[in-house]
């Protein structure tokens, strides 16, 4: 019985392509004029969601304009799916001292 459970557990852990939960490792929180986490590393094909918890509007603007959000008021969100590997620097076009980075592997 124990061996059976252990084997099941191991099988479960080695299953590839488990979808990440929403609100978990694919989320960037915007608050206090910062992107948190400032650097987020995700696998190719991940949809990243930014949510603004600050009390002023912010944007998510890729440095090369590859992804550009509208201005996000408090509690508004923006999502983008990263389909190629690489480093994506971005910033808030309203408060440009706010910068972040999505590393796609």
């Amino acid at each position, binding site marked *: 019985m124990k061996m059976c459970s252990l084997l099941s557990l191991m099988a479960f852990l080695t299953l590839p392509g488990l979808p990440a939960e929403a609100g978990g490792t694919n989320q960037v929180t915007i608050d*206090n004029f910062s992107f948190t986490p400032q650097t987020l590393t995700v696998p190719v094909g991940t949809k990243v969601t930014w949510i603004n918890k*600050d*009390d002023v*509007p912010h944007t998510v603007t890729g440095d090369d304009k590859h992804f550009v959000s509208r*201005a996000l008021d408090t509690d508004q969100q923006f999502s983008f799916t990263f389909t190629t590997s690489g480093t994506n620097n971005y*910033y808030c076009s*309203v408060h*440009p*001292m706010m*910068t972040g980075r999505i590393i796609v592997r």
Partner: protein
Amino acid sequence: METDNDRIECDIENDGVDRRGFLKCMAWAGTGMLWTMTGGVLASKILSPMTAAAAESPVGDFTFVQISDSHIGFAKEPNKDVIATLKQAIAKINALPAAPDFILHTGDLSHLSAPEEFDTLDQLLKSTRTGKIFYVPGEHDVLNDSGKQFRERYGKGSKGDGWYSFDHHGVHFIGLVNVMNLKPGGLGFLGPAQLDWLKDDVAPLSDSTPIVVFAHVPLWTIYPQWGWGTDDSGQALAMLKRFGSVTVLNGHIHQVQQKVEGNVSFHTALSTAFPQPQPGTAPSPGPMKNVPAGKLGSLLGVTRVNFVQGQKSLAIVDSTLAGS
């Protein structure tokens, strides 16, 4: 430094314009911030013997008002009613003994660049007792459309992203836009096209022409960690170095900060919507939330600027909504 200082009415020391006398005047006006200076800053009522002749023709003197950061559409702590506080500011302007010739709004008219926010602001400002109102955009006014709506509403006759100049009683006013095309990790930004325009704009002016520059983000570096500065303002200021009197009026930081450097006086205005913390005193420059009940008015306000013919510096008087 100044050889032609005027005496301020309330300078009981009788030793010329000095910090103490100025502060006394400012206490009367309800100003909250120290003004440190090296040149003469003068109240509009008093003229020195050297300019007594000018007193005979006061037609050259005038007053205007700067308001800033009305953020129509904002409704969070510490101010759930920015319309009410703007109305108080307008009442304060309308209570001035003489109507100001015009008003400069140094940006962040709206909070989210929404059409209804601009409409509301326009409606409210209609009741202001003044001549014209001039505007420059803040970063909150150019969201999503690179400022197209702002320019349509407030930028008639402006160039490029909305810069322009005008003359009033011999003073040259320059409205600059430093909230467009902001670079990642950068501060405010004027850009080469605007700088080229500025160079041509001031070229025909004599060095004795008083200059007033107004723009949203401070044109000097106050606190770069919070974006309080303009990356290429040095180039603009270099073009203005030859002028004997330059006044720079900004907003954006929702508090009064001032500096004098040679012939240039820098000043930022209070907001009519919400205060922001002083540099480094909070984790971020967002709205100050812990404002005790009844204290909000003392952290908001308007600025009155007096120009007196023949005087080098303009007299800048900040008044809060709480004061007289």
